[in-house]
């Protein structure tokens, strides 16, 4: 009898413990030194958007991350359709998805969209948060306001006709106004200053976030871990996560991440060091990589007296870099660049200048430009020893230095600290911070047209306005930029951007070298991961054995 009772008790306990034991948990080692901000607009660049933006929140528009083969394009998110007014191209109408709920149970509607636009654009709004402005407003520079038309329709206004707005809106994450108001009400009454109350409410929101995304915040320890659990009620049933819990751990040191994966402390690491890849593979880990919308370039100075003002010299440099060998140097973790975007991309545009390794042709062009082995051209490039997206800047630049020496270039490298280089990028080639450099090596994301091309090629984007570091001033580019910006049919807009891209490649506007492949290594227990051609990842389809 006693034995039967014991067995029955054991069986009951096993049944009760079953769901807990069966919980599927994936632990991820991030490269960030801190958990990116969780209040809706993440910091730490696109790694922030990847982990604390797209997981817990949605935008009106989203990136399609479902394929490893096709370019990632913009798709409907919390908005189902959008259009620009026929008579006023600065006014957009967005139709919103019905039946969507925030994690706190409140409804998503037009008021929520207006509230989220106000949080970064309306300084008079009670919930305006300066700390979210920089990372948001800079990514949607023309957005000026939002107005509710009805419960599921909003009108967005831009400062000028801008066909890029739907792409830019992937960066505006919709947080729950109801949750924020609840947390505001919980701020002690002793705090009287409305700004201080709002600040404290946002701090509380960061610890108890609420969006509409496929993952819900479960546990947050600043600088140590963020745990999110699956949102079974997510509006897109195809994207309901297949694992129960995801734990994100900041591990800025590449060797520490590798050791954590190899010792079984985590199941997935971002950006393993290239040197560690053979060891990881030998230990049975899976390494995923795919071309990202990322560019590793030399951005030329085009100010008076710059040697890069001669198109023959620019083309020669592009033809003199042996990208295939560089790829070997990086253990295969790069894609050889043929422009800002790769062939097959909607903005590719079939340029006639084929960027490849052809040192003979390069030397011929240099000879035509008046240079030889005896009379080399001295060029100076400013770069960093490390930095986000910079891949392996020193070995890569030194490799190029050797390559270019074969084509009559004498390359001098000016290596400075990453954040300083990043700041100098904005100051331009004429500024003393350039220290006489003829090129700057700062990598960039090429997700949307503004970041990929416009800020570098439009003469109006010269410093201090934006990142046209080299002061490119080409009326053709300006005209093509304007044309793309004011073409509102998506296919026609992409065609206009393709013409701009082809023109810039034919002109060898940059020395294009590589695209990063966003390597990540994971335990063989993880299945179903899709590595899209994007900076972002959809964590929903993965499972763990």
């Amino acid at each position: 009898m006693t034995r039967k009772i014991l067995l029955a008790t054991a069986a009951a306990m096993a049944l009760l413990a079953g769901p807990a034991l069966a919980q599927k948990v994936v632990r991820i080692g991030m490269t960030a030194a801190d958990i990116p901000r969780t209040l809706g607009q993440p910091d730490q660049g696109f790694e922030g958007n990847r982990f604390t933006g797209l997981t817990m929140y949605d935008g009106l528009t989203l990136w399609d991350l479902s394929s490893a083969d096709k370019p990632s394009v913009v798709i409907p998110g919390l908005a189902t359709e959008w259009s620009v007014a026929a008579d006023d191209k600065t006014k957009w109408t967005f139709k919103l998805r019905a039946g969507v709920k925030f994690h706190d149970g409140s409804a998503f509607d037009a008021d929520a969209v207006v509230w989220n636009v106000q949080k970064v654009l309306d300084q008079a709004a009670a919930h305006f948060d300066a700390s979210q402005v920089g990372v948001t407003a800079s990514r949607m520079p023309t957005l000026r306001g939002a107005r509710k038309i009805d419960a599921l329709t909003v009108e967005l206004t831009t400062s000028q006709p801008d066909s890029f707005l739907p792409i830019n809106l992937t960066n505006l994450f919709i947080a729950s106004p109801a949750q924020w108001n609840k947390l505001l009400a919980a701020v002690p009454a002793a705090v009287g200053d409305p700004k201080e109350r709002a600040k404290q409410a946002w701090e509380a929101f960061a610890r108890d976030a609420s969006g509409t995304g496929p993952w819900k915040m479960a546990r947050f320890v600043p600088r140590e871990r963020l745990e999110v659990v699956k949102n079974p009620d997510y509006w897109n049933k195809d994207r309901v996560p297949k694992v129960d819990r995801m734990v994100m751990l900041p591990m800025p040191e590449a060797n520490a991440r590798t050791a954590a994966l190899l010792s079984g402390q985590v199941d997935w690491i971002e950006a393993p060091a290239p040197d560690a890849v053979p060891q990881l593979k030998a230990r049975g880990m899976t390494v995923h990589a795919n071309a990202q919308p990322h560019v590793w370039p030399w951005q030329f100075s085009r100010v008076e007296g710059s040697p890069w003002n001669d198109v023959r010299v620019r083309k020669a440099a592009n033809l003199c870099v042996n990208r295939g060998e560089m790829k070997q140097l990086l253990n295969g973790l790069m894609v050889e660049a043929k422009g800002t975007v790769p062939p097959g991309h909607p903005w590719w545009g079939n340029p006639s200048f084929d960027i490849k390794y052809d040192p003979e042709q390069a030397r011929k062009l240099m000879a035509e430009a008046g240079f030889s082995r005896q009379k080399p051209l001295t060029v100076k490039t400013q770069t960093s020893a490390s930095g986000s997206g910079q891949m392996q800047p020193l070995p890569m630049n030194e490799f190029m230095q050797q390559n270019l020496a074969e084509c009559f270039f004498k390359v001098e490298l000016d290596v400075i600290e990453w954040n300083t280089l990043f700041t100098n990028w904005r100051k331009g080639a004429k500024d003393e911070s350039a220290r006489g450099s003829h090129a700057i090596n700062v990598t960039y994301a090429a997700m949307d047209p503004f970041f990929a091309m416009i800020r570098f090629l439009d003469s109006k984007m010269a410093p201090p306005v934006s990142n046209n570091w080299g002061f490119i001033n080409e009326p053709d580019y300006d005209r093509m930029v304007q044309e793309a910006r004011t073409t509102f049919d998506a296919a026609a807009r992409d065609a206009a951007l393709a013409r701009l891209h082809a023109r810039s490649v034919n002109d060898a506007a940059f020395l294009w070298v590589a695209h990063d492949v966003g390597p990540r290594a994971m335990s063989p227990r993880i299945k179903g991961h899709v590595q899209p051609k994007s900076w972002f990842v959809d964590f929903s389809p993965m499972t763990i054995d």
Partner: protein
Amino acid sequence: MLLYILRRLLYVLPVALAVSLVCFLLVHIAPGDPLISVLPPDASQQLQEEMRKVYGFDRPLPVQFGIWIGRAVQGDLGSSIATGRTVASEVGRAVGNTFILAVAATLLGFVLGALFGFVAGYFRDSWIDKAATTLAIAGVSLPHYWLGMVLVIVFSVWLGVLPAVGAGPGGSTDWAWDWAHIRHLILPAVTMSVIPMGIVTRTIRALVGDILSQEFVDALRAKGLTDGGVFLHVVKNAAPTALAVMGVQLGYLLGGSILIETVFSWPGTGFLLNAAIFQRDLPLLQGTILVLALFFVGLNLAVDVVQTALDPRIKRG
């Protein structure tokens, strides 16, 4: 004694002011944009100017310093630009984590250092002395981040007996003195202890050698004291200096180690400083450095007081 402590406390004030001024200037002189974490370089010029105004970076440096120090003396170190969280809460949490690591490393370093030092000093020029001295030299010479990586490879990757990173299975907020947490502490504490171990070994070895050559030791032996009895006298005479050295070492360790804490993802002050430096988070950087510097000043004061109490030869005047 009380007057001595009060006088020493008064000395701390100008030191603290000087420290705060130096750390404020150092972080502002360093190149880079303090708004880099919240303002990408592609932000419009107008937006940049607006944000500089919001964060007060448009004001002259002396005004910025005045505002900062005025708030700091009231205990308000401001908020982190990158996270929006208060600097006091960030530093408080990190100091707690570093304290656990530093105390563990200090205990380990001091116990081993004292053991090796006394043994080496007592058996001077023997093979024991040579072995202990070799260990001490290795301790102060090995780059500790390298040692940390080697320990991780051996004990985490190859043997799989100790975790490679982190401050516990659920993070530092759940810290408990149980095996699940202590096993996270072992590798960083061992790595961190090798330098104090080496320094203490060398210091005590030299002290013991010096004390043993003094006449009072011969007198003790002549009076018939056993080796154990003599040893106790040697320990008592070596203690004030050893304590001072250990105090300084504890101060260094409490300051956190950027390298060790980053290698082991240990969420202490070194890890915090690393993040603050790379994000150009000036309020966090200033606040953390100030707190650590004051900590160091306070610790030196405590060591001086204890040393004075232990050794009446040290003047209080």
